[in-house]
């Protein structure tokens, strides 16, 4: 009998979405990783099978939900199952990507079943590699990048006599440490006090939408509550589409230089830009909350153990228009540092506390924007691959639980702004406006950090 463990807070976040939205699709994550080389697929299959042993999280399964909808996780001893090979060489790379995109919509339906599937792929233009589709409770994006790199390193080791990759941390050991931390009563009390104090001091948060105050007004009418401070989220039409914008290398470097000079993290600069936009389009609203994703990986073991460690916390700030840009950036940084210190807390408890205090209606939220900044590029780095082209691509799962989810990552020497938005709520023009003003706000502030937030909102 396998040992059963509770889900961590990060896993529970995904699990709750699956239960609330009634589809596992919202928890799917998929990526293709391929190299422009002749590939020995028999060897690649062996490497993927070896990865199942090295990276324990790939062998995670979940029990049937109990009467409260909760599940337990456990690790199985995976037998050497088959890894299929698909030949897509008769297509263009675009057509192959489109086909793999449809695979990303698949769901893992059932209890006590594997939640991870590999397909080796022969792609057009000489690219060869594998597509992997998984449940987000097994891995987050950092864990996926580590896994891809490890599989490629195994292949390089066996095929080209490269170094055998360093061992990866034991998933179960790190999980037990996480569970121990989460059940530390003193730590829990400190974290709870921090989040409760914020509500004591600032009261109920106030919703802000990228389309302006009309969204909250509609929610107030619907709920017949003129003082309602949260707005409805979409529960039934989860279709999502993606709009990408690339910020070129030169302006990206200006942002990096600003961050270095003033010791501001890129995440905080982006949060300031988004909150200023929300304030601008909501009649200067000062109390703004954005959900920011944090990947709780700091130690070597946390980095290499796999698992889902990314979790979102509200970044709530009250910034007056007479605050200068740099001071506002430090205010956000200060708030984020406190959040990091208390990020061991399960954010579900924050939502529960607000619901208890303010009777927040079901299926409403205080936030319209969600941010992930990924400093780690999706790349396959190995000295033996120096001159080899790589084709790697993330595929959206096609079902969004959030109105607008912005992923900012480094790509092509610049930064890629990837807006995932629910088509039931927003359209491409909303994203164009958001990106346009976001850039205007950030670059105005970077060029003139003494300018006040109020002046910047007027200028842009």
């Amino acid at each position, binding site marked *: 009998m396998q040992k059963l463990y509770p889900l961590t807070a990060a896993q529970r976040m995904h699990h709750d979405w699956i239960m609330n939205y009634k589809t596992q699709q919202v928890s799917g994550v998929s990526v293709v990783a391929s190299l422009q080389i002749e590939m020995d697929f028999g060897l690649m299959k062996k490497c993927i099978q070896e990865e199942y042993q090295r990276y324990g999280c790939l062998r995670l399964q979940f029990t049937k939900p109990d009467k409260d909808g909760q599940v337990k996780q456990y690790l199985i001893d995976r037998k050497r199952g088959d890894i299929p090979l698909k030949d897509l060489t008769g297509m263009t790379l675009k057509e192959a990507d489109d086909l793999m995109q449809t695979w990303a919509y698949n769901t893992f339906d059932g209890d006590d079943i594997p939640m991870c599937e590999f397909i080796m792929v022969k792609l057009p233009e000489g690219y060869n590699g594998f597509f992997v589709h998984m449940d987000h409770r097994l891995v987050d994006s950092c864990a996926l990048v580590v896994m891809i790199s490890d599989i490629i390193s195994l292949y390089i080791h066996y095929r080209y006599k490269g170094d055998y990759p360093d061992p990866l941390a034991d998933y179960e050991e790190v999980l037990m440490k996480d569970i121990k*931390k989460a059940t*530390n009563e*003193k*730590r829990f009390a*400190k974290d709870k006090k921090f989040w409760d104090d914020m509500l004591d001091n600032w009261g109920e948060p106030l919703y802000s939408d990228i389309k302006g105050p009309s969204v909250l007004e509609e929610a107030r009418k619907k709920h017949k509550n003129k003082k309602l401070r949260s707005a409805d989220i979409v529960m039934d039409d989860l279709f999502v589409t993606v709009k990408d914008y690339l910020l070129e290398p030169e302006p990206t470097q200006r942002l990096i230089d600003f961050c270095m000079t003033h010791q501001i*993290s890129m995440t905080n600069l982006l949060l300031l830009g988004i909150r200023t936009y929300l304030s601008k389009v909501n009649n200067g609203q000062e109390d703004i909350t954005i959900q920011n994703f*944090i*990947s*709780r990986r*700091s*130690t*070597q*073991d946390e*980095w290499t153990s796999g698992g889902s460690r990314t979790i979102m916390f509200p970044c709530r700030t009250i910034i007056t228009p007479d605050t200068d840009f740099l001071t506002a950036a430090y205010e956000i*940084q200060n708030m*984020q*540092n*406190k959040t*990091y*210190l*208390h*990020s*061991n807390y399960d954010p579900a408890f924050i939502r529960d506390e607000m619901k208890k205090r303010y009777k927040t209606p079901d299926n409403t939220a205080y936030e319209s924007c969600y941010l992930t900044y990924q400093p780690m590029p999706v790349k396959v780095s190995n000295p033996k691959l120096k001159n080899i082209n790589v084709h790697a691509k993330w595929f959206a799962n096609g079902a969004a639980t959030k109105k607008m989810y912005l992923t900012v990552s480094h790509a092509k020497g610049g930064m890629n702004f990837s807006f995932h938005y629910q088509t039931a709520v927003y359209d491409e023009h909303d994203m164009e406006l958001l990106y346009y003003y976001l850039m205007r706000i950030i670059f105005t502030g970077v060029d003139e950090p003494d300018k006040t937030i109020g002046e910047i909102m007027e200028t842009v």
Partner: protein
Amino acid sequence: MEQKFKEIIAQYAKVPVEEITDDKKFREDLGLTSLDFMSLLGELEDEFDVEFEEENAATVFTVADALEIMKNLTEGE
């Protein structure tokens, strides 16, 4: 206490404990991000059963700074 303290820092800096010398700066020399640093403080609090004042956290730049605060906190109990 000092040895355990440095072992924890070494885990976060991903370097051998011998490299955790007093003069090392958390950000510049050990490469810790804000999230790493604040997570480290949380782990030190739990391990040594102390509580950092938020203002103190802002004045910690080097291993020696952190060690001094830790010693004051543990001796003050």
